[in-house]
């Protein structure tokens, strides 16, 4: 009985490991308290399925979003906007990078001395089988980390027009009086 349970546990872990490996820890509690504006999006399986039911298939952008979401297992976004430069530790970026294993490939690096530094990583399993995406965007006054878990169609993602007809929302303004 004990051996059977052990084998079952190993089997479950073996199945779960590749999925959980794509999700990385992007939570840095100290950052949100210092940031003037914060975006915190955490959507996993059930919520994603629910969200896709509310995406309008007749709207071209929402239809594309729905298609992307239908394959994903998780969407995690943390974006922090600061009032002044240098309010976040660059080690945060390194901490995110350090979690990316050997299957992760950096596909984009944009470096600018005083503007936006962007790095895009994809988790490639097999031939061009993208199983996850991480975007790190570091600006002097803004830090954004995106983690998409599951098969990602990067072409479709980049072709999304961006506004979706919704106002710029979800950013939580924090006032430091």
């Amino acid at each position, binding site marked *: 009985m004990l051996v059977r349970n052990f084998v079952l546990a190993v089997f479950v872990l073996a199945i779960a490991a590749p999925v959980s490996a794509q999700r990385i820890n992007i939570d840095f509690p100290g950052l949100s308290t210092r940031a003037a504006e914060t975006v915190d999006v955490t959507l996993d399986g059930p919520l994603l399925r629910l969200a896709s039911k509310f*995406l309008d298939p007749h709207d071209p952008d929402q239809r594309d979003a729905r298609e992307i979401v239908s394959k994903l297992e998780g969407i995690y976004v943390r974006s922090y906007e600061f009032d002044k430069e240098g309010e976040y530790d660059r080690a945060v970026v390194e901490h995110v990078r350090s979690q990316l294993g050997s299957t992760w490939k950096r596909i984009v690096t944009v470096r600018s001395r005083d503007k936006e530094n962007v790095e895009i990583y994809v988790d490639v399993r097999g031939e061009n089988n*993208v199983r996850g995406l991480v975007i790190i965007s570091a600006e002097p006054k803004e830090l954004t980390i995106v983690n998409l878990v599951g098969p990602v169609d*990067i*072409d479709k993602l980049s072709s999304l027009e961006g506004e979706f007809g919704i106002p710029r929302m979800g950013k939580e303004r924090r006032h430091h009086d």
Partner: protein
Amino acid sequence: MDIESDLERALRRESPPEGFSSRVMARVAAESRATRRAPWWRAAAAGLVLTAVAGGWAAHEEMQRREGERARDEVLLALRIAGSKVRTAPKQVHEIGTH
């Protein structure tokens, strides 16, 4: 003691008293009316239960709708952010994105 004559007397056919059948029929009708009409409190209780169930269902649907719309807005926001970052270097991304 004559058993035969006793039995004969006991089993003798007798006519019912005057109005017996109409009294029986009236009583049967009254009882059936009483069983058909449920007490008012039963109807009220059933109404309350139905209202509570319908109300609970409507509230659950409304909560689901709000949660779904919120999740949808978060998906759109997240994809907007991701899409805008990916577009900063479209050429490089295109090379690996085409599969």
